[in-house]
């Protein structure tokens, strides 16, 4: 029998009556989680915008475009979730995305007659995908090596590779975008739909997110990710290869940035360098808003999904209700700071016990 007394902001202190091993009910656990509150925020936003502009906001088309526009960021943010749970950070994902897209574009051009990849077939497209993924993974490995093996703080390492990857991407095509992208790729992965209206781009992002959630929440890899972020020294003493694990986590994030680069290329039919320069911050903001703690050890993929949608819904909603969407930036900033503030209060309360 467990009696719980909810404290001011949701998490509870429990007193056990029979000295047994109480299991908290799902309701209690939800109230204790940051994710729950941020999900409420998202729900409230959807309800408000639906109420203001039911005819425009609550339409299939709005949700389709909303999902498509968040797909690329979602893939980046899933990787970011792993990194932040290890109490690290990866500022380079946006640049790696651009670099991977650029490498894929250049590869596909190089394999096509006259350097024009617009009419290229699936063989060339596959080569492009492999190139993007390999390029992303290599940057991830570089990050991981410098952080885990050379012990340089992640903030500095990824700040460095953020600039380096972007510079390398500019060098590859003399500072301009690659625009000859296979029409076939743009038509299927970029704009195509399956199962009666589900955009293919979204399908890919959903599958990646589900795999990420599975990896984080049910496997040993995920368990070690939390352990390393929670107490790296303790994890080391427990026999966990902390260095190897961090290397894997940053490599995974680079790999996902590579995939995201290819998805972006498929959707925009261009490398769109200038559209991705703040992707890193957007991914970090989404992850942190979703309840993943910058101090490590806490976080979930579900939270990140919600965190990705809050800025997107705000933007869409402001557009539809004809509020200048610069307000979105201000609103997202406020929500982000509030989320971190809550997280810190939770920690301070815990540490004072």
């Amino acid at each position, binding site marked *: 029998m467990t009696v719980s007394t909810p404290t001011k902001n949701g998490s509870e202190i429990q007193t056990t009556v029979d000295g047994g091993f109480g299991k*908290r009910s799902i309701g209690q656990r939800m109230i204790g989680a940051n994710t729950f509150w941020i999900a409420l925020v998202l729900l409230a936003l959807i309800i408000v915008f639906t109420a203001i502009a039911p005819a425009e906001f609550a339409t299939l088309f709005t949700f389709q475009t909303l999902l498509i526009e968040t797909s690329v960021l979602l893939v980046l943010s899933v990787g970011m979730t792993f990194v932040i749970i290890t109490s690290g950070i990866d500022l380079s994902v946006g640049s790696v995305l651009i670099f991977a897209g650029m490498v894929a574009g250049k590869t596909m051009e190089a394999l096509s007659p006259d350097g024009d990849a617009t009419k290229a077939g699936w063989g060339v497209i596959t080569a492009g995908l492999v190139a993007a993924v390999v390029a992303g993974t290599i940057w991830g490995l570089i990050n991981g090596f410098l952080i885990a093996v050379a012990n340089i703080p992640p903030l500095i390492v990824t700040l460095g590779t953020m600039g380096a990857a972007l510079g390398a991407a500019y060098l590859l095509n003399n500072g301009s975008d690659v625009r000859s992208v296979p029409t076939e790729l743009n038509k299927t992965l970029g704009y195509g739909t399956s199962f009666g209206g589900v955009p293919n781009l979204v399908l890919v992002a959903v599958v990646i997110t589900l795999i990420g959630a599975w990896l984080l929440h049910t496997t040993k*890899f995920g368990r070690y990710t939390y352990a390393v972020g929670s107490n790296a020294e303790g994890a080391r*003493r427990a026999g966990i290869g902390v260095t190897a694990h961090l290397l894997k986590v940053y490599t995974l994030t680079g790999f996902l940035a590579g995939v995201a680069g290819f998805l972006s290329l498929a959707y925009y039919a261009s490398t769109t360098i200038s559209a991705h320069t703040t992707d890193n911050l957007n991914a970090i903001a989404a992850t942190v808003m979703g309840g993943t703690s910058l101090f490590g050890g806490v976080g979930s993929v579900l939270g990140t999904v919600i965190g990705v949608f809050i800025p997107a819904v705000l933007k869409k909603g402001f557009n539809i209700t004809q509020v200048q969407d610069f307000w979105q930036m201000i609103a997202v900033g406020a929500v982000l700071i509030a989320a971190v503030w809550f997280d810190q209060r939770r920690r301070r309360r815990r540490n004072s*016990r």
Partner: protein
Amino acid sequence: MSELLLDAQNLVKRYGSVEALRGASFQARAGEVTALIGDNGAGKSTLVKCLSGAEQPTSGSILLDSSAVVLDSPTTARRMGIETVYQDLAVAPELDPAANLFLGREIHRKGILGKLGMLDKKEMKRQAVEEFQRLGVTLQSTDVPIGSLSGGQRQSVAVARSVVWASKVVFMDEPTAALGVVQRERVLDVIKKVRDKGIAVVLISHNMPEVLSVADRIEVLRLGKRVARFTGADTKLEDLVAAMTGALVQEEAA
């Protein structure tokens, strides 16, 4: 007298020109709490590091179950059934007690999903609850992060983690140093339960009344050597202090 489990003979450890251990000997017996005491700098920590695989002695031999062993890493020591509870809690505060208990020794699911790295959380939780109950560790809940528990409960989980996996020897370096009175009693109770399992418990402590209350045997280290041995029942506080400060010397190590 119970069976001699761990027998370290004439251990020497040099760090450059500093001699932390100068021929220290140490013995621990199955089903007994052996306290290792000494003033600061006596070499207690170094000795424990050598015996738990964290450091390698420059010379000397370590016998486990009367056969010579080389403990070249903590992992090797763990594999031989030697566990260590660290002074600063080596638990992951964001993980729940069961996850902490099985940290680094996770149980996988059966079949293909297990091969893919999927964990059997239910089984781990079930075994964890069983172990906690057996050791008398009471927790409010098994699915809260361990960081939200009190210091005593956290330390109890840390102690439980070592003893569940230890088949032979458990080293506890100041396990109660950071705890209040009630919490300290709780941890000491766990220590007694572990001893009753037939494991050799080695307790490193500065707290003399605590040592006298739980230890079956006391070994005193001074300037890198063992200088005295007592049995718990007929030891007076003055003798311990005398041995620690050098006023009393029972044995001259070779």
